[in-house]
């Protein structure tokens, strides 16, 4: 029997809309659940004082420092590497077997569980290179972890720049590098920034890769070779060891707010950039 298009249309709207609403509800539920339990714990003192008694009491100040330093180091290392690689792949090589293998490889890397990166970081940076459990080891490991994402999102953004812009630039006597600098990168920037922000979010929330490489020291670090603890790791330890559910939720809520703030400021920056150019 043929169902009238009017009914299939209604059915489609119900299914598609339902999926959207469900997704939104899950998101809202998680955020509300965490914030409800965590927000009462958060105050200025919680954010600015040192933890006491393994985190049972006191604040989370050192983990704030760790959460800022590790992703920052990772981004500083991975962003130029990632952008340079994607520019090279998309502008300086012609599509062939080698570039396809590289692309396939980066896709695979992007899908590897973070704990594998943690293990790699532990063996390579912590032991082999002798950096120990440190901000340096953790930052390098996170950089390796987010590199494929930055490469692929940058490459997509670069590919989305109209081919005609390249043609015009070359026809006016530009070299590849001048074309990249003056036409490709400015136009691909919003997409590149999106990829970087996704990576920031991912590295702020990362636990497995960090706990193996940066350790979990609660002292405030004074060099790149000191161990540190991020909020995500702090939360994991507080919850896992049953130290303090209250402070665990406080940390989780701070983490969520931090990620939210990073994303919002990224959108704001990007909109400003786009409206300035057009």
């Amino acid at each position, binding site marked *: 029997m043929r169902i009238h298009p009017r009914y299939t249309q209604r059915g489609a709207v119900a299914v598609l809309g339902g999926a959207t609403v469900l997704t939104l509800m899950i998101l809202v539920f998680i955020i509300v659940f965490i914030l409800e339990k965590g927000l009462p714990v958060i105050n200025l003192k919680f954010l600015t004082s040192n933890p006491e008694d393994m985190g049972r009491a006191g604040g989370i100040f050192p983990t704030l420092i760790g959460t800022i330093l590790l992703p920052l180091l990772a981004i500083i290392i991975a962003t130029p590497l990632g952008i340079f690689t994607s520019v090279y792949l998309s502008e300086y090589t*012609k599509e062939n077997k080698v570039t396809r293998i590289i692309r396939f490889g980066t896709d695979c890397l992007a899908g590897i569980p973070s704990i594998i990166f943690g293990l790699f970081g532990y063996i390579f940076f912590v032991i082999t290179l002798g950096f120990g459990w440190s901000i340096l080891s953790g930052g390098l490991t996170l950089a390796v972890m987010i590199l494929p994402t930055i490469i692929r999102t940058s490459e997509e953004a670069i590919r989305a720049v109209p081919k005609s812009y390249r*043609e015009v630039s*070359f026809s*006016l*006597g530009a070299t590849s590098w*001048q074309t990249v600098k003056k036409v490709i990168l400015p136009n691909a920037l919003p997409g590149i920034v999106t990829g970087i922000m996704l990576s920031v979010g991912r590295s702020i929330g990362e636990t497995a890769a960090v706990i193996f490489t940066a350790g979990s020291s609660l002292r405030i670090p004074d060099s790149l070779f000191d161990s540190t603890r991020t909020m995500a790791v702090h939360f994991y330890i507080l919850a896992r060891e049953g130290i303090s559910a209250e402070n665990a939720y406080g940390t989780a809520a701070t983490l969520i707010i931090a990620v939210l703030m990073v994303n919002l400021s990224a959108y704001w920056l990007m909109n400003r950039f786009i409206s300035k150019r057009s």
Partner: protein
Amino acid sequence: MNIKFHIQDLNFYFNNEKVLKGINFEIPANKILGIIGPSGSGKTTFLRALNRMNDLETGTRIEGKILLDGEDIYNSDYDVVALRKKVGMVFAMPVPLPMSIYENVVYGPRLSGNNDKTRLDELVEKSLTAAYLWDEVKDRLKTSGMRLSGGQQQRLCLARVLAMEPEAILLDEPSSGLDPISTAKIEDALTELKKEYTIILVTNNTKQAARVADNTAFFLMGELIEIGSTGQIFTTPGKIETNDYITGRFG
């Protein structure tokens, strides 16, 4: 007569398909050469061979020689960047870069390291005037080139090429999407410009070739069927195919 380009036994392949077959002719300086022929006849491929824009595509191969002022531009040590500065190009679709009108015009000069403000200002006025656009945009040089109308955009593209002070200008169906008034302005500009430049105009519009070209070449299926003065091609064509095409029997 001064010869700008010598084309010698030119064959061109796209993924092993021969799209230009044994082309031989000369292009004189300070004249407008019109290239006519139906779609797929190799006009655009030929044009893009003259400034090596085909190099940007994969799977292309060339045989034979193209000499610019006696030098083979496909010689392995020929500087492609310098070639493109000497041989400018206007594309079928007007593509202003996403920057101001002013920056579009000085894009080429800036690439060569020319950043002197007074010199650039002069170039902008001179080029836009020669492209018949100056009066329309002189008060809004800082606005985006993308805000101009299609006809204005194409004249901006012409001005951008002129600002490089090239020796030859290639135009690939520059008025295919334009209204008659914009087309007339571009044609007026070309007639003026041939005093200083060698101009090669590919067009799908045979009447346009008849209006502006000094010499006309007719391409069909990758071959040069006939070349001669525009008057001769349009009044007493030597080949039956040329006659059939210009009288509108096919194409």
